[in-house]
């Protein structure tokens, strides 16, 4: 997952025309695309191909997109971008809860999908090696390793980026719009549910009690804040 390099995209889409079209477009943008038509095939390919990013249609025959998403997430911390039907809000929320990092609405414009893929693959490490301690949490910005009481925590790329963004300025409030721009590289009008869903997943992994968060705190009406611990 090197910016500008060739990335491996696993595309799971049941409709042959859409699958072919997206494969064509993504290949033109310089990705190596593996396109499969079902969740089961996708999970097989996940193990053998080790893709850098998964593009997943939620409406799949057989195993549905949410289940595929959960299984991918359980197996690997690979970024997942969902393809959703326009306006199916329940799908968006359920997909984000299942662990997806971002979503695009069908009919997809390939350049939009391309921008999302680049955003989730962007490397966020800093040059200088720093080991930060926040309470029980240690954040290694160079090695991109987060540990809690010495035990490494497995974070999805977007969760990691959100944590790095927030913990970079402890005590400062980040609005949802700011986080959408800095972490997801969406514009001002990105879907703030992306932030909320990602915060929930992150809390489940690093907080002792998700209901009473210490690290990622909600500032009602404004956004989120890291600590102070």
């Amino acid at each position, binding site marked *: 997952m090197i910016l500008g390099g060739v990335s491996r995209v696993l595309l799971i889409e049941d409709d042959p025309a859409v699958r072919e079209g997206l494969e064509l477009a993504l290949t033109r943008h310089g990705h190596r695309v593996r396109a499969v038509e079902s969740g089961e095939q996708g999970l097989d390919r996940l193990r053998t191909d080790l893709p850098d990013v998964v593009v997943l249609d939620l409406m799949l025959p057989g195993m549905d997109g949410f289940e595929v998403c959960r299984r991918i997430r359980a197996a690997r911390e690979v970024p997942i971008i969902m393809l959703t039907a326009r306006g199916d809000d329940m799908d968006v929320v359920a997909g984000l809860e299942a662990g997806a990092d971002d979503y695009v609405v069908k009919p997809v414009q390939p350049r939009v999908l391309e921008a999302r893929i680049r955003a989730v693959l962007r490397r966020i490490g800093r040059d200088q090696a720093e080991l930060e301690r926040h309470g029980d949490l240690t954040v290694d910005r160079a090695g991109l390793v987060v540990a809690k009481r010495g035990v490494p925590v497995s974070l999805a790329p977007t969760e990691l980026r959100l944590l790095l963004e927030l913990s970079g300025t402890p005590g400062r409030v980040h609005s949802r719009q700011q986080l959408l721009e800095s972490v997801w590289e969406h514009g*001002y009008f990105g879907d703030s549910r992306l932030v909320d869903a990602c915060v929930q997943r992150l809390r489940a992994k690093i907080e002792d009690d998700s209901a009473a968060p210490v690290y990622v705190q909600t500032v009602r009406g404004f956004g989120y804040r890291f600590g102070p611990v």
Partner: protein
Amino acid sequence: MTPRPSLGLRARLLFAFALLCVVTAAAVAGGIYVQARNDILQRAQDAAVQAMRSRLEALFPLQSATPGQAELDEIARTMTDGNSFAVAVYHEEHSRPGPPADGSPGPPAGLWKPGGNAPILDPWAIPKGLRRVVAGGDIAWQRVVWQGEPYLIIGAPLLIVERDRTRMSGIEVYTARSLLAEQRSIDGLAALAWLTGGAALAFAVVLALLAARGVLRPVRELGRAARLLGEGELRTRIAVRGSDELADVARTFNNTAAELERHVKQLREMEADARRFVADVSHELRTPLAALAAVADVLDEEAAGLPEPAGKAARLVSQETLNLTGLVNDLIEISRFDSGVAALTLNEVDVAELVRATLRARGWSEAVHTELPPAVTARLDPRRVDVILANLVGNALRHGEPPVSVRLSAEPHWIALEVRDHGPGLDEAVLPHVFDRFYKANAARARSEGSGLGLAIARENARLHQGDLTVTNAPDGGATFTLRLPRRAHDPDGGPE
């Protein structure tokens, strides 16, 4: 509910009942009273006359045809008994008061001649008419009120019977009998009649009130139900009690309401079917469109390298794919509003920043003049407000004339965003329809930019916020769209904190 109609009916019922009662009571009680009174008086009269006749017989034979004072007194004494007292008159003379010979109690006070000491009827109390009749040779009687008490005065002439003819002796005997006891009986009868009448009236009023209530309650219930029905509560029904005319009305009402409900339900189902059809079509279009959209970019980028006319065709396909995508997206969006699944994702936002972001994202920052006071925050769905603003500003830039301005104003509970251009404004005939779906002001511009759903979606978005979107023509030219949104939009789902 206005009380007037029920009061009217109640008053009319009360009046009718009371009138009926009074007339009946007056007829019955009055008739009985008159009959009883006459009867009582007649009996008293008959008894008195009978008594007088028998006493008169005791007088005969008279001692002389020209009686003196002593004889007149004797006659009067003979005629006087416990119940009556008498006077004998002979021309200008009459019996004088004196102690009764048989020691019977005297007549009541007031009939004494003033200054006298024996029971005697004052001859002046005897009506002249009566005296004339008696003087004519007949027994006659008359009721009089003497000094506040009712009396029956009976007068009889004494006759002298000779061998072949009878002639007047000139002596007249009058007896007076108090009718006080009879008067009391009659008074009692009258009082009883009044009392019975009053009680009946009170009873009638109570009955009228009950009847009015019995009629008015179903009527009032009917009125309430009809009003509810009018307000759209089509499931309104009324309880049917009994089997009278009012129950019939209630049954008719219920049947009508049921029919109405069925028709409205049918219409709604048809409308829902139509909308569902649009939604289904839109969704079905999405998959092929997704495939088209995926390759449109490729086609567009390759177009430059293609020989004409293939290049032009490729660009056309690419462009129309984009337009079609926009149309289908708008159709899906509007069918989401129709089916009520559109939801707000509320966020506390700086409104000025939101407006700037909308303009910036579309490269309109330079073209649009803004008046955005700082620090105006509101709880909104930024993406939906962006859709509204982008539509309004986009329309103003395309169809209006510069300068296009966006002005923000804030009230304690509302914000207002005014988007204005300085073109000729909209035709007055068009104004009420600009938010209609697929409404085209100008048939010639049958296929303008946009789907024809933009303003409809903008308004739906405003209403989803419980705000509104309106349009007017500014007095000095140009169309002005005003978006009003509550600063704290009601959020049924709670939304993110």
